[in-house]
């Protein structure tokens, strides 16, 4: 299978200071790859680099090959056509990502109209289809609803409907389910998984939640202070972590580990001080 995204020796510099050291990986159609690490490890920088949304003064080296094009050299105007259409994104905060004074149906149709994904007479039925697909119709949410009337999980579904509106080849999900409770989280993840298979969409998920990653991803990349310290198949990574930092991350998580309650959790500060390569 040809990769839908192929990253080669990508590094990011902020005013000549490296914040992401050369990293290479691929994402295949229908596959979910997770990126994890502590805050400050470079997870979000990587996501932003892929979307061409790095702040001014940041420089990238290496290549990001997506659908035969190198995104690092793509002019902004061409990138704008890709973003939201071929590469879609969903974020953690559904309330800030949605326009509070616009009906959700309108916000979804905006995406379709902007990218000319479907002829204008088909937009309304297409919006209905999307609402149906993400399970909002079943929950009795109409296209006329405003974001404030929806629960957190429902808002995330709206974002997901917008993201898949143009049938993207790659979905970047940055801490997408972090703000949801565990039951809603599980529902959302199942939905994303189904959609990935259905649309042969590659998913790059950024998450610090190892429980979510174990359930969702086929492969995991572990970042520590801008270095890729380990990457492996999910099950192997969880069963036999090779890098001390991965082991430390795993032992810090309260999920699936047996820390005696009411005792301090071992925080491997010594591990996060320096990167062992």
């Amino acid at each position, binding site marked *: 299978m040809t990769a839908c995204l192929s990253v080669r020796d990508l590094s990011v510099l902020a005013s000549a200071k490296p914040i992401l050291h050369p990293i290479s990986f691929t994402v295949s159609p229908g596959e979910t790859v997770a990126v994890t690490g502590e805050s400050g490890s470079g997870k979000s920088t990587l996501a932003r680099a892929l979307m061409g949304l790095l702040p001014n003064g940041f420089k990238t080296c290496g290549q990001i090959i997506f659908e035969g094009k190198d995104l690092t050299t793509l002019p902004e105007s061409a990138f704008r056509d890709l973003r939201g259409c071929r590469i879609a994104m969903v974020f953690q905060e559904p309330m800030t990502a949605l326009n509070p004074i616009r009906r959700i149906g309108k916000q979804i149709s905006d995406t379709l109209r902007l990218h000319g994904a479907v002829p204008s007479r088909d937009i309304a039925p297409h919006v209905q289809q999307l609402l149906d697909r993400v399970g909002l119709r079943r929950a009795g949410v109409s296209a006329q609803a405003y974001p404030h009337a929806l629960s957190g999980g429902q808002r995330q579904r709206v974002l997901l409907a917008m993201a898949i509106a143009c049938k993207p080849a790659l979905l970047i999900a940055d801490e997408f389910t972090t703000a949801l409770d565990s*039951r809603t989280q599980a529902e959302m993840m199942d939905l994303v998984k189904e959609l990935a298979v259905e649309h042969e969409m590659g998913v790059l998920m950024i998450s*610090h939640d*190892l*429980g979510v990653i174990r*359930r969702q991803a086929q492969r995991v990349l572990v970042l520590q202070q801008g270095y890729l310290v380990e990457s492996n198949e999910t099950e192997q990574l969880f069963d036999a972590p090779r890098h001390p930092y991965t082991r430390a991350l795993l032992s810090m998580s*309260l999920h699936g580990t047996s820390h005696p*309650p009411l005792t*301090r959790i071992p925080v491997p500060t010594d591990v996060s001080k320096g990167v062992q390569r």
Partner: protein
Amino acid sequence: MSALLEAKNIAYSVPERGSSVFGSRKKTVLQDVSLHVAERETLGIVGSSGSGKSTLSRILTGLIRPEKGKILFQGQDLRDANRQVRKDIRPSIQMIFQDPQGALDPRQTVRQIVKEPLHQMALSNDEKERRVLEALADVALPQDAADRYPRMFSGGQRQRIAIARALVTRPSVIVADEAVSALDVSTQAVVLNLLLDLQKRHGLSYIFVSHDLAVIRHISHRVAVLDEGKIVETGPTLSVMDHPQHAATQDLIDASL
């Protein structure tokens, strides 16, 4: 063990969506909820979204009034208490919220933020300043943090600022509503360790509200399971988690990853 903070038969409801002001239908949020926390104890309240967790924590801290039932602090009914007594009690019950970004005013310095709960207390300026620095030291933030703004801190540090603000009045109970849910695992571990240390050091009681069973299991002595506004199960943490009696508890355990 005697109760430090106690809720008795709390009920709360909101007008149903779409109903008119006249003859409005009510939607029950909390129904006959009773619970208590003893000194130096942590009570975990767990439930899925919409179960009434946040409403309950706001009632416990006095941010909203229950429709029925009462809140007792050291046996004193807060509703019967006169203004002065309430004013004296209020500093003893503090709250920490989920989103430190939203809970901290971006235009205030950390000093102003942490000092704010002291405004209602009759303390000298020197004493207030001393308390602020003491609270910052308690959460292991450097002294020079006081003159900086929230945006200059990471998520975990911001949550520590919020904890310092809760500590500054020297409370006996802290209600924490999803206090570590927005933090990544390593930061979560640091903040949980800090809360455990503070409990030992100051003899604090916590009411720890969360949807995250793993966190609740780690930090609580006892748990209460909230489902559709009712407490369906309560008991020592490990016995509830290992031998759940109610379907809602089992559901939460199954959904927990």
